[in-house]
């Protein structure tokens, strides 16, 4: 999960958000695929990392993304009740409810950390989501200066 942090432009005028997305294989990734095959155009700022299930997304992944200079992180998976592994997203949901509060307390607010449910049929929702998240992060600006967990060297 190494990202090239040197390429991040410093000035706000040319700021292009780097957003890391952790998505599940069965719903959101398929939804992203559908957005692509449907020729939907959306912001190119998101780097997708596909995992088997949202239940596989350890909070450490999110911290690692921020550590390596992500301006925001998106976590997305199947709608409740639709998990390919029956309950992976339910497990994930409880974990995120606690984790996002902890991150907010330490200075990573909900303009940096996003959660969503996107099904395999929701290509349009995925495209809209990416556009919306990108716009929000663009407005929030680069996370370099205020990111409490960013790698220093």
């Amino acid at each position, binding site marked *: 999960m190494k990202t090239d942090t040197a390429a991040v432009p410093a000035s706000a005028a040319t700021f292009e958000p780097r957003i890391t997305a952790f998505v599940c294989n069965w719903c959101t990734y398929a939804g992203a695929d559908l957005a692509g095959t449907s020729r939907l155009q959306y912001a190119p700022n998101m780097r997708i990392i596909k995992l088997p299930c949202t239940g596989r997304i350890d909070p450490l992944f999110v911290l690692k993304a921020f550590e390596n200079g992500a301006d925001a992180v998106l976590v997305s998976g199947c709608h409740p009740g639709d998990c390919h592994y029956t309950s992976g997203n339910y*497990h994930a*949901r409880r974990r995120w*409810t606690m984790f996002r509060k*902890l991150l907010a307390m*330490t200075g990573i607010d909900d303009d940096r950390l996003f959660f969503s*449910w996107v099904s395999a049929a929701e290509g349009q929702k995925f495209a809209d989501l990416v556009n919306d998240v990108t716009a929000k992060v663009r407005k929030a600006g680069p996370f370099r200066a205020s990111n409490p*967990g*960013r*790698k220093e060297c």
Partner: protein
Amino acid sequence: MLAALRDAAKKLLDEKRAVLVIGYADRAGRPALFASKPEDCGRLVYDASCRQNLAAYLGKPEVRARMPVAIVAPPAVLRSIVVLTAESQVATGQVLALAVDQDSFLGTFDAAAAAELLRAKYPALGPAPDLLERVQGLSKKSAAERAAFWAEEFTKCTRCYACRAACPGCYCTRCIVEKNAPQWVSTAALGHGNYTWNVMRAFHQSGRCTLCGACEAACPQGLPLMTLNALLDREALEEFDARPGYDPQAKPFIGSWDAQDDHSYMR
């Protein structure tokens, strides 16, 4: 009070109901006292300066080899014993609690009886008012101010892991921070590794922390670790109605789920 505590401990050793009694010693700093002979029990004390959570010893192999064990337990430690029982870390009947509070010795309890005592006598233990104020004060600040506050605090961390050693909840034989293939948490005492370590340490206690305060008391750098623990404690209570340490049969908080769990923040 002390006489009653010492007598009860002595009796447990005399009657061989316990092989070892772990308590607080009558020395400055109140270190742990390991009494395996009845005559050692005369050195047991309990007062407000006893900050260690003695349930942390229940995970140590040296203690596990000398079960059944009795430990001197103020309310937060009673909760830790119940949590460890719920998490299958101590077997039923292997751990007895010599329950104490600030004024009196309350008796000898196993995990189930300890849970009953807690429900009857301390049904709603939570963060102390000054601790809640710390949480609320920080919550009111802006994200940048919060980030700056914690960056400043975490800079002091020397990664001695005294917080981990002091905590009965941190019983993994191999901690994530010691795994290096891949290295998830940088072990250098620098900003990013310190941030990740402290955030993960707190997160792993969510829905399990009994607010004993041993981690913060053990921290040689004086980090306000309990602020994070208290935040998660309130969150677990408000969102999931979870109070760890009141039910020895409780399902694991993070390892379980409910279809009705809130997800209003999900888009």
